[in-house]
């Protein structure tokens, strides 16, 4: 019996060592169950089970940090952080999806399709966070494009069709460009005896890589993934998609999906950081970051819809994240901090937008107003969200932006002055637009008089905005440790 014990242990370790595969199979099973059954109870039961499994995976990955999960996945600190963020956002997104679908449609088939695809979308993002292989990461990102396109098209309108087409097509072209970058990287990898594109191996071999190929690969991957992270140059289709998608989907698209793009760029950044071309790559990132903020500012002066306003605001924040990476050192810490805080705040804002949409017949800025009187609790949540998104203290985003600008001035980047001017303009525009919603008079015929106030709808927003304040003012040790672990390889 004793002689059999090690074998049994090995078997168990082998089985558990494929936790993400098990999670993916479980998610697939739940998704197919929802799709086939088209039953309300099955929907809610499966979604609940999936949420529990997601939290369980988060805890499991934290316990097994820095361990491999098969040869394709690794529980690294960045993946653990972003999975924790996604777990929380998914839970709230499911709740707001329930509200959204209850208000929008009674079609069980459409509801089943929605939940089924949402589960697959979240699973693809989790798989991307933990992907240890560059090719696998690319496949996961491509999968997110496919699933999110189905979710964008959910309303089946002409606008949804246009947005879905543009997103799907440009994403495909963008990812084809990124794939070419991966192929170029594989050239230098195989020159150095690396034949499997695992990040750990690529980082180890990076020092001896031919700089020209690394530069080409970096630019192509950055360009391709700009669709996902919503930065210059391929940002436009993501903005259009966010204009149309349902607010609970938007809450994930503007946060967790953007984080997927960041993971891809950050993994590439880690490879570049081992070479002598890091400074060149940082200049490229600086240019992309500043251009993103500049374009976001120009576009924000033109926007007429709240969803577009929030979408361009995401572009501005991702510009700041990119600048953080460009600075290096403390800037990278600030970039990851900013990414997490932005995820909480932006998701909360989109959830609140869903509640606002319920009270008005249109989501165009000019057709809204007097929200403080219509829904006082919702208005307070919104005000808290606006303060947070503008990085006004006590928002955690204030801390991360302060770190970025401190690092910019410390390194004598005079571009910081331009960025500060652009951010001031953005603050003015966002305050003006949301002040209109909160205080301006609105005609009676623009109001949805059948709408009922649901105070529970605001709970998720208060939790998310509260978290951003708490993590900014008094970050727990495990949280800062995880960020430090994520950037440890750069030190």
């Amino acid at each position: 019996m004793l002689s059999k014990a090690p074998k049994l242990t090995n078997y168990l370790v082998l089985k558990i060592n494929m936790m993400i595969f098990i999670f993916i199979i479980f998610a697939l099973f739940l998704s197919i169950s929802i799709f086939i059954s088209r039953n309300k109870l099955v929907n809610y039961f499966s979604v609940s089970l999936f949420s529990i499994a997601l939290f369980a995976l988060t805890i499991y990955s934290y316990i097994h940090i820095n361990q491999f999960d098969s040869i394709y996945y690794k529980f690294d600190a960045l993946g653990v952080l972003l999975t924790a963020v996604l777990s929380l956002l998914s839970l709230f997104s499911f709740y707001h999806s329930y509200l959204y679908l209850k208000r929008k449609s009674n079609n069980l088939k459409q509801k089943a399709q929605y939940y089924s695809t949402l589960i697959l979308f979240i699973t693809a993002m989790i798989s991307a966070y933990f992907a240890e292989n560059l090719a696998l990461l690319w496949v996961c990102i491509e999968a997110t494009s496919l699933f999110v396109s189905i979710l964008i098209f959910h309303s089946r309108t002409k606008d949804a069709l246009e947005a879905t087409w543009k997103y799907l097509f440009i994403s495909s072209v963008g990812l084809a460009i990124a794939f070419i970058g991966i192929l170029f990287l594989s050239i230098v990898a195989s020159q150095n005896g690396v034949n499997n594109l695992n990040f750990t191996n690529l980082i180890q071999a990076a020092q001896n890589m031919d700089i020209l190929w690394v530069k080409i690969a970096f630019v192509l991957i950055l360009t391709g993934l700009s669709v996902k992270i919503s930065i210059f140059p391929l940002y436009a289709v993501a903005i259009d998609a966010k204009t149309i998608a349902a607010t609970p989907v938007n809450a994930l698209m503007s946060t967790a999906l953007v984080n997927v793009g960041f993971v891809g760029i950050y993994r590439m950044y880690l490879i570049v950081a081992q070479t002598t071309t890091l400074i060149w790559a940082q200049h490229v990132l600086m240019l992309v970051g500043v251009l993103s903020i500049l374009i976001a500012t120009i576009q924000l002066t033109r926007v007429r819809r709240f969803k577009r306003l929030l979408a361009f605001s995401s572009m501005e924040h991702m510009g700041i994240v990119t600048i953080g990476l460009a600075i290096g050192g403390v800037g990278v810490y600030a970039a990851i901090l900013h990414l997490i805080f932005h995820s909480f705040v932006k998701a909360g804002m989109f959830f609140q937008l869903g509640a606002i949409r319920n009270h008005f017949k249109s989501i165009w800025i000019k057709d809204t107003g007097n929200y403080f009187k219509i829904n006082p609790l919702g208005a307070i949540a919104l005000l808290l969200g606006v303060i947070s998104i503008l990085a006004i203290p006590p928002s955690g985003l204030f801390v991360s932006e302060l770190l970025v600008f401190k690092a910019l001035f410390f390194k004598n980047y005079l571009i910081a002055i331009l960025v500060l001017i652009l951010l001031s303009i953005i603050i003015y525009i966002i305050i003006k637009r949301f002040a209109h919603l909160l205080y301006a008079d609105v005609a009676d015929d623009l109001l949805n008089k059948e709408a009922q106030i649901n105070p529970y709808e605001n709970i998720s927003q208060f939790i998310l905005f509260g978290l951003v304040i708490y993590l900014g003012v008094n970050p727990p040790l495990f949280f800062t440790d995880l960020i430090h672990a994520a950037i440890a390889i750069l030190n």
Partner: protein
Amino acid sequence: MTYLFIILYAITLIYFALSERVKKFVWLLCMQGFMLFGIVFFSLHKIEIFDFIFILTETILVKSLIVPWFLNKVRKHNQLKRIQETSVPVFFSIIVVVLSLIFSFFLSNFLNSNQIHTKYFTVAFASIIFGIYFIIIHKNIFSHVVGYLIIENGTFLLSLAVGSVMPMMVNLAILLDVLMGVLVLGVFINRIGDAFESTKIDQLSSLKD
């Protein structure tokens, strides 16, 4: 023989620049599939037998038969005959193809790496450049998918150009080609054709503020 198929592949690019009929685009994509099959058959036989058979089957079945068949169905559904919307003269397009081939040839020689097979790289890179150009000059979403497939075929060749040590990546790329590039986009072309009664890109501009 590999050289023959590569040259024939380059000729299909020139034919793309010459053609104005949608039916011919589909036919040329079918031909490109056959060329890729020939290239794989004569050059990849040293890889593992399972990967070899898988890639061969994919090129002949997916690229040469299923994709063109499906695109033809989409073409007929949307009653597409002649693409007249290009603002660029055919003569200019031919120059672009030739220049992209010359540029790619010099680039592959300039890079001068042991890991690059120059014979594939020249046509692969030219195919990618021309695919992007094809998307830019056409204002019809069907042609955009054709341009996307030209890029994907170029990417497939590029993966051969950088050494066939990673056939798994090639396989994945081809599978995703089918899923994203043709089946999903094709379905959306049909939906757009039905909803907007046209597949012209000008129709798709209502999302701006």
